[in-house]
């Protein structure tokens, strides 16, 4: 067995297989989207993107994903801090629950929101009587995005808090700084890298979300049709050109965010 494994040809075959695997599974497909979007020339790409329904869906996605990320930054930072700082009954349980949205299929997440906030639920009926629409409207999309991206900020902030030096916080307290001043001048800077990278990850994931949103959005073109659902619709109606054009926008945006996170993390690591 060892002799076989050490044979040059086998080793070479192994390495080639691995590189080919990555090339075929990841690089080629991504390149394929870009090629497809430009296959009809730049003019066709621009035309596909200036289609009102296309850019409206992209803009709606960016807007709602940003809202979801901001909400997650706020509640995620507080939750991470509470889970780290206080010991209270049920803390371990809550900490395990954080990962639930990662473990749960997004379609199930969507169905949950539909059952909970839909027209047949008491929340939905209450909102209806007040003239508000939750499901099949923007609020449900934001809720779905918040649910799916909930773990990101918490999981990015927690390790920083574990590492953080409690003595700084205590020194601030001893020197007479108020609780809020300690929070803003000592704790927040400690958590900042996690808040930023977690928030950006949440944003990028919310941009890409499909499963949870498609079930609750109602997918009304120009109103509640988000980009990934638009892409799905274009594929279904056999218009790969239109699907590729919007895909390229989403992909480029996500790659930029990924690159930004990596650059920021590299900088944090160096300083």
């Amino acid at each position: 067995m060892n002799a076989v494994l050490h044979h040059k040809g086998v080793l070479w075959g192994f390495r080639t297989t691995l590189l080919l695997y990555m090339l075929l599974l990841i690089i080629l497909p991504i390149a394929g989207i870009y090629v497809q979007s430009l296959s009809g020339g730049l003019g066709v790409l621009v035309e596909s993107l200036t289609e009102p329904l296309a850019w409206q869906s992209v803009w709606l996605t960016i807007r709602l994903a940003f809202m979801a990320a901001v909400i997650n930054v706020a509640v995620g930072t507080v939750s991470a801090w509470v889970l780290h700082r206080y010991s209270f009954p049920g803390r371990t349980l809550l900490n395990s629950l954080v990962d639930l949205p990662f473990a749960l299929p997004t379609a199930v997440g969507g169905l949950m929101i539909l059952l909970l906030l839909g027209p047949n639920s008491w929340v939905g009926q209450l909102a209806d009587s007040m003239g508000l629409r939750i499901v099949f409207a923007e609020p449900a999309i934001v809720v779905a995005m918040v649910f799916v991206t909930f773990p990101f900020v918490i999981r990015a902030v927690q390790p920083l808090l574990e590492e953080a030096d409690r003595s700084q916080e205590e020194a601030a307290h001893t020197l007479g700084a108020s609780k809020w001043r300690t929070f803003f001048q000592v704790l927040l800077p400690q958590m900042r890298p996690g808040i930023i990278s977690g928030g950006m990850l949440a944003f990028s994931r919310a941009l890409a979300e499909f499963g949870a949103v498609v079930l609750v959005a109602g997918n009304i073109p120009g109103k509640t049709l988000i980009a990934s659902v638009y892409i799905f619709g274009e594929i279904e109606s056999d218009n790969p050109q239109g699907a590729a054009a919007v895909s390229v926008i989403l992909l480029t945006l996500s790659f930029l965010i990924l690159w930004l996170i990596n650059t920021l993390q590299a900088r944090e690591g160096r300083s």
Partner: protein
Amino acid sequence: MTSRPPRISRTGKSLIGFTYMLFIVLLLVPLLQIVFGAGKQGMGSFTQSLLRPEALHAMWMTFSVVVVVTLLNTFFGILTAIVIVRGDWLGRRVRQLMNSIIDLPFAVSPVIGGFMIVLLLGPHTVLGAFLAKVGMPVVYAFPGMVLATLFVTFPLMVREVVPVLQEIGTQQEEAASLLGAYSWTTFWKVTWPSIRWGVTYGVVLTIARSLGEFGAVLVVSGNIINKTQTMTTLVYQDVDNFNIAAANSVSLVLAVGSVTLLLLMEWAKKRKGVQADAH
């Protein structure tokens, strides 16, 4: 951790209250909703929805995809991680590039992930038409669903194993090979025990992700009933057909699966932590 204040201030109490509320409203209530929703329709209707031929077939499809994807992703994931950390035959820059490429699937919307495969191997393409003729169609068939899920899960295993390999360093492995052990033996006797819990965690993550994958599979599979339909795409179709009760039943099975996996994740994470401390 040890220097916790014995008394919690009023601000602290309200913050804890807020966190509790948040977790209950955002995570626990929706989860229980699925359980009670299925309970309300009664056991008979619950089993009836699950025993529909399309539901049984969808379960079988999901199971097959999970098994095949987990095996392939574990194998290639460990291999890729070893190459990234230890592959001196590739330049440092190439390995750095590989390391960044690994994360790309995280940034790609699942729908786009499925779309890519349709573009490359769909029935309209040369390769796709050829494969269909040979009797192995990829798109709207099982191989495509596996490919799409592999794409989505690719980073999970690599990301678990790379940091462990980086941390343990090469000393032990070098000692082993100096003592005359060949690389295969070195792997099993030296490398494997260190990465074991990282791999376990990666496997659990891969199972969870492939169990729940929806967007990519929906696009690639075409969601053909009794043929390429999986549990998640069946939920989608049931909701689309306003058969909420059936969707609820299938979702409950999926949710029980994910919660079990979540518990396994916690357990693997703890073991991983214990092992990391020992080093």
